[in-house]
């Protein structure tokens, strides 16, 4: 004691891929820009 140091294989890499499934909702239709687009469409 203590036991002799020895090498160990490195752990393989695991990625957090589930993260990419957490995303913001589309809020384009809640923005003013959309309304302007509507008005300019009427004017255009």
């Amino acid at each position, binding site marked *: 004691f203590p036991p002799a140091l020895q090498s160990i294989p490195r752990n393989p890499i695991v990625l957090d*891929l*589930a993260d990419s499934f*957490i995303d*913001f909702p589309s809020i384009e239709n809640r923005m003013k820009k959309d309304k302007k687009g509507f008005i300019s469409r009427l004017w255009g």
Partner: protein
Amino acid sequence: MAPKTKEKLKAAAAPSQPPPSIEDLFTSLNRHIQRSEFTQAVKVANQVLSVAPGDEDAVRCKVVALIKADKIEDALSAIQSAQKVSFDFSFYKAYCLYRQNKLDEALELLEKQDKTQSGMLLESQILYRLGKMDSCVDICRNLQRAKIDSLEINLVAGLVSAGRASEVQGTLDAI
């Protein structure tokens, strides 16, 4: 004091002006999201919620922004207080629990839900952490048809950790 947005400063300078409309706030929220300014996004989402409590888009933006800002505990609180919102936050909640390493709790939550690609992917990551490599590999194999980017990295990790390194080459060749 926290830095304020231009809109806020303008409003403060001219008290007679009406407060920003919900549309203005969503425009600002969208800009913060595009710029990955997640802490700012949370603040604006809160502004929306102070005018329109329970607004589903605002609640969802707030929860996602908190997760992206690594404020997992706050994200869980936000989910907890969003009971009336019709959006199903179960996957988000399970993901937060996974991030807090509350693996059994996360798994339990996922098992109650219908199987979705995202749920299965998260389940495979939880099983990996729990050391249940064979189950992890099984799910990754089931997900292979879903064409999830970089999934093969986790699949190989599962195989190696399961002591099935001999299957790695064949698996990679089959992709």
